[in-house]
């Protein structure tokens, strides 16, 4: 499993390296791409070595990704992606952060879901988080965050 995943990962890196190399050597003016050319050659050479080693199973493959880990991370990743790429701007930073924080707690907190105490605890922690973020960024640092529909 790890070797197969490792080959895919090495292959993706090789494709990126080839793309970087191609852009570096085809774009103009050449002077602007002189340093990227040097880097891209090293990048491509090392990617080829990594890919060959992966194909020949002659490399440490790392821990890889188990099916269990993928299953566990999927809901959290989905929430994080929606938060970053849509909700933060559309709903406003503070509103979306509050909702996302509460959803993530509900998804990953091991406390029993059928107890009222659990939900009150999650709500209190979420409110505390939002209050701290607001105090830090809006009050202390004066950062104007996207407001969207709400705040």
């Amino acid at each position, binding site marked *: 499993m790890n070797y197969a995943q490792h080959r895919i990962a090495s292959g993706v890196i090789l494709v990126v390296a080839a793309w970087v190399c191609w852009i570096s050597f085809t774009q103009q003016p050449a002077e602007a791409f002189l340093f990227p050319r040097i880097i891209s050659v090293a990048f491509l050479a090392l990617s080829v070595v990594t890919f060959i080693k992966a194909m020949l199973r002659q490399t440490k493959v790392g821990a890889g990704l188990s099916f269990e880990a993928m299953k566990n991370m999927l809901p959290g*990743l989905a929430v994080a*992606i929606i938060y970053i790429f849509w909700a933060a701007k559309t709903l406003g930073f503070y509103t979306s952060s509050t909702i996302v924080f509460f959803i993530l707690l509900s998804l*990953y907190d091991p406390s029993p879901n059928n107890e009222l105490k659990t939900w009150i605890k999650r709500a209190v922690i979420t409110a505390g*988080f939002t209050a701290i973020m607001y105090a830090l960024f809006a009050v202390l640092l004066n950062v104007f965050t*996207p407001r969207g529909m709400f705040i």
Partner: protein
Amino acid sequence: MEFIYYFGEVFTPISMLLLIGGTIGGLILGATPGLSPTMAVALLIPFTFHLQPVHGLILLGAAYTSTVAGGAVSAILLKIPGAPANIATTLDGHTMAKNGEGARALQLSFISSLIGGVFGVFLLIFLTPVLAQWALAFGPSHLFWLAVLGVTVIGSLESSSVVKGLLSGCIGMWLATIGFDDMLGVQRFVFHNSVAGGVNIIPALIGLFAIPQVISMFAKGRFDTSVEQIKVQKHSVGKAFREVFGRFRALSIGTITGSIIGLIPGVGGQIAGLVAYDQSKKFSPEKAKFGTGHPEGVIAAESANNAMVGPSLVPLLTLSIPGSPTAAVLLGGLLIHGIFPGSDLFENHPQVAWPFINSMLIGQVLMCIFGIYIASFAARVAQVPQSVMAATVLGLAVFGSYAVQQSMGDVYVMAALGAGMYFLERFGFSAAPLVLGLILGPIAEGNFVEGSMIANATDGIFPYFFGGALNLFLIAIVVLSIGYSLMSELATKREARS
């Protein structure tokens, strides 16, 4: 003795407030498993953006110092090292705590950290100006090779595989070329509007260090992470001080080992504690007691961890080569304030450099005082469930990345780099060389371009970059560091086979 003139800046109300806040915050963050010192400093950088450079650096320095020491709290009381640097502390520290000597272990740990840390900062104070004077002789070709050296040393020492480490460094250097070319103003590799102005270093640092931790926490799913905390009995601080000095051998081995390891670019604190523990055990007449709750184990490991902090900044402040991943993040913190480390740092910015170093000296004392008195509280905070931790770090990463330039593009870059780094880490790649490539890339390119112009007007590129004793010396170190790491990797493989 120039540093003495700048002590006044450390004792201004705002500096002291940041120093105390950074120390207490760092102790708590350091005690929290999963929050490494590097990640803690990376998450703090956006807050320094709105501060004066000297104040920002005081905050980051205090956090760096105390997160390393704070990791001992969870190592001793929960048997979970707060950071990889505290692994060796777990061996004897937790056994002492289980034997009802938790307070003693914590006090020994913080006092040893204080002594090691102060020694390390004094090395920083006395070695930095000397090296900085030496660095004045460096021209563009030497600075180019130094930047390459920084990436190759960390790339070959920090990763599980030399090729992957170097590849990570290349990816970082390529990321640094995205955006406008400084010389001609041409756009390079701009495949999305978010990177039109280049990859901003702070969102990149936050993404590369914080997001993989968040995804790792998600990957663990819903499970109870509560760990039983051992109760801390009272113990006399005076007795602990006498005991630390009474075990001078372990203290000196830890302090000297940590200082030497800190000076070597790229090695960092991860191994300082383990090497010092091992050496202390070898030289001890009570070898058998190590691992059974022997105070010397804690003293050696913790004095080494903090002794590494000061010297790890020597190559950073003089040659722009960070001594550890956290020092690399600190380099990012310096650059966003327009301060370029190097030979002229102490000439152009003494009002920033010296108070920063002095604050680390005072920070060591504060770390010891607060460490001893808030250790139990920090251990309780360290038991925060992973779900809360993941959601908090994600929120801080988004707000922190946005705050730098108030740009959603930075948030997208942070998220994309973080997610990419998580998957790369799963396949044996490391974030440290990538970050080094990203930070040192512009330095390498700038000096390469400048050097090329000089070379074209003189003897040509090859003699300029490959000629001269200093160039050859630096190239030799680059080759040696890669060669040594390749040999070590081959030897490990052979051992594994046999």
